[in-house]
């Protein structure tokens, strides 16, 4: 009995000691705004290296707040000065002037010569930037460099904002994969390849005080664990929040702050002009209800008119409103009649389309919704899912409707998408869209240096593709971010995926 009592008392004492603790001290704040707070964020990707020049690793070193580029895309998709203060072009030669006082985390000043070396290294390390090797780049002073291109390159300034063109200290970095020396407000503290990344404040940050003491980035690919970790208090935020999770977070606005901004990843479909005549294509585009689709996807996409956000100067196109009655009359005028199954047919053959898609980026949901909408007006369809669209239907052209998702605006300029999708030499030409007028406009856009004129040309080009019913631009993915209350400044209002924490990111206890 005594032994039992002694055991119970010992247990109570141990529990009491465990329960003891001091109340958490309020976040210490230095005079300049620096705190001792850290944030923990979940990321859907994790790479094996921190070498910003390789592959897409620069997207994540930028997200981690480690690397910076000469220019930065702002919330309105305009390239703003960052490490550079200006870039002027007189045709084929760009003169870039660096900002005063910029330095790496080891205190060493960033020079024009080092910038040139970085760009040359990126050209060598990254296939997507190999074209830079053909440019003549030289430092003309400590803070100025020139880049001479073989032909007029109007969007160089925007492309210098690509996170893969981050500026690193190439002389003093000994391990680019694990500990690159960069200019950002944070430096690497520990790095687990394809795993957890920890950063701490760069005490020598050129841009002033860094509010956060550090951050931890956890690799979590699945949505449900991210949501559970958020609800459990294990993380302070993440992006690409699902529709279901958005609903949950919105019910507790005191605990979670949700941010939804239209971003640049586009869901669209190509209509195969080699198989579908003009009337059928027009009927399809008059039937697909993008607003209904966006509503179904519950906040994760914004209905699109064109490939670019309507807030941009080059996103000003018009599409006809959904009009199923007109769609039906177009088909009937084209010789289609409704059969006993309620499906249009011509010459005894039912109008049945092959909708090809791949199961990512909600395209599976999109395919089903489009199928339903078409069926409602009498167009039958079958769904074909492929694991790799680039190796199958995009290459073979074996589709009637091909769904796809890609970043349409990667650097605040329309040329990239127009060149990749609407040019006659692009692989999307397999869908049969050929327009000499469009091609001429694209050629003009390629060399046009005036920003307003570029937007006007882009609008004309995209409008041609809409008027020809060659494509249907369905939705632009929203950048959906959830942050714990008190956490701010995680680039939640910026449409680009490659920014997250910076010197102004903060967390109040």
């Amino acid at each position, binding site marked *: 009995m005594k032994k039992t009592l002694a055991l119970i008392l010992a247990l109570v004492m141990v529990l009491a000691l465990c329960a003891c603790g001091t109340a958490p001290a309020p976040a210490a704040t230095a005079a300049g705004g620096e705190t001792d707070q850290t944030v923990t964020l979940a990321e859907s990707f994790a*790479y*094996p*290296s921190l070498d910003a020049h390789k*592959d*897409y690793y620069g*997207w994540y070193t930028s997200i981690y707040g480690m690397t910076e580029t000469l220019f930065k895309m702002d919330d309105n998709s305009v390239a703003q000065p960052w490490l550079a203060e200006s870039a002027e072009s007189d045709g084929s030669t760009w003169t870039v002037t660096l900002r005063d006082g910029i330095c790496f985390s080891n205190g060493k000043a960033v020079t024009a010569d080092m910038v040139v070396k970085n760009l040359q290294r990126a050209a060598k390390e990254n*296939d*997507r930037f*190999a074209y830079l090797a053909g440019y003549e780049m030289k430092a003309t002073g400590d803070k100025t460099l020139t880049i001479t291109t073989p032909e007029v390159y109007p969007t160089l300034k925007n492309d210098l904002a690509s996170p893969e063109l981050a500026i690193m200290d190439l002389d003093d970095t000994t391990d680019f994969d694990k500990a690159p020396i960069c200019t950002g407000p944070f430096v690497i503290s520990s790095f687990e390849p*394809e*795993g957890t990344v920890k950063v701490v404040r760069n005490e020598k940050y050129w841009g002033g005080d860094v509010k956060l003491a550090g951050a931890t980035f*956890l*690799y*979590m*690919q*699945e949505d*449900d*664990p991210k949501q*559970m*970790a958020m*609800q*459990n208090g*294990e*993380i302070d935020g993440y992006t690409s929040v699902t529709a279901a999770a958005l609903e949950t977070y919105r019910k507790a606005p005191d605990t979670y702050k949700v941010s939804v901004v239209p971003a640049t*990843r586009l869901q669209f479909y190509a209509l195969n002009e080699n198989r579908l005549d003009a009337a059928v294509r027009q009927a399809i585009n008059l039937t697909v209800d993008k607003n209904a689709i966006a509503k179904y996807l519950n906040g994760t996409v914004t209905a699109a008119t064109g490939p670019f956000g309507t807030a941009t100067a080059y996103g000003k196109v018009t599409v006809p409103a959904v009009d199923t009655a007109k769609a039906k009359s177009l088909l009937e005028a084209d010789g289609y009649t409704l059969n006993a199954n309620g499906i249009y047919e011509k010459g005894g053959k039912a109008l049945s389309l092959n909708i090809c898609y791949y199961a990512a*980026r909600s395209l599976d949901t999109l395919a089903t919704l489009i199928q339903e909408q078409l069926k409602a007006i009498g167009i039958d369809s079958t769904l074909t899912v*492929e*694991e*790799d669209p*680039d*190796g*199958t239907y995009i*290459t073979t052209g074996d589709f009637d409707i091909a769904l796809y*998702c*890609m*970043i349409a605006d*990667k650097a605040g300029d329309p040329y*990239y998408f127009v060149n*990749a*999708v609407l040019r006659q*030499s692009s*692989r999307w030409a397999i869908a049969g869209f050929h327009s000499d007028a469009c091609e001429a406009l694209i050629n003009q856009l390629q060399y046009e240096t005036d920003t307003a004129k570029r937007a006007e040309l882009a609008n004309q080009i995209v409008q041609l593709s809409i008027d020809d019913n060659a494509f249907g631009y369905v939705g632009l993915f929203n950048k959906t971010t959830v942050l714990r209350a008190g956490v701010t400044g995680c680039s939640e209002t910026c449409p680009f*995926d490659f920014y997250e924490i910076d010197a102004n990111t903060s967390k109040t206890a």
Partner: protein
Amino acid sequence: MGRTIGKRLLQLIPVLLGLTLLVYALMDLAPGDPAAKRLQAQGVAVSEETLDAAREEMGLNRPFLVRYGDWLLGVLHGDLGTSYRDGLPVAAKLWKGLKNTLVLTLASLALSVAVSVPLGVYTAVRQNRAGDYVIRFLSFVGASMPNFLISVLLMYFFCIRVKIFPVIAKSSVQGLFLPALALAVPLMSRFVRQIRAEVLEELSKPYVAGARARGVKERYVLYKNVLHNTLSAVITIVGLSVGGLLGGSVVVETIFSWRGIGKLAMDSITARDYPVIQGFVLWMAVIFVAINLATDLAYRALDPRVDGLEGGR
């Protein structure tokens, strides 16, 4: 015995050659472009010229047999090549994934055996009683539920409701428990039923009746005689499960962010990372043969009357 083991290992060579050639051929025939997969990973389109240059750099334009021959030559020199995705050595990537999966496999097997052996014996002894029905029903449910559902339910219950474990699995006992349990639940469900059947068969044998008639204690009969004779069946099902577990459970590894070899293999297949896929197939084939050999040796150790290496029992 040494000669037989040697023969088994020699048989491995044509198996590996045939398997790797078949897999390489299938990958070559399957649609998909490793260069496009790598360069367009974040949804950014690249020009055909850039893709062509990447294909040239990756050696993808060479004929299939030349590529396979080069790979084979590399393997004979102990070099499994480098990953198309990140340029890291394949062997290092596979080893890292395998280590993590090995930990998970051992943990889930230990948990499965520790739970299913006593439960299997219990249900056999208490045949057709309430306990037997309940456990058999639960094993039926456990065997029917898909891994992803088990994983999410465990996470929800233990991390959100009861808050014993963190959602984010770390390399610690606490971080390991839930993914191991997620893998163990379907295993336990199968093991319990298998062990129950084996124990029932043993209990019906004359030596058990004889032992009971001689007044030997029931516990002794069960755990010294019956269970010992059932062990070979336990080893069989454990052996069969080890191979599958070492192949990695992609679903569990993805949900718990456990960077094992299953996830590595799946990501490599999606990315058309041929060198990693080939390396994975090679390693898994060797591991499967080694496990089968170990299982057969274990039979022989348990019961010298059985010549396990000749496959007899």
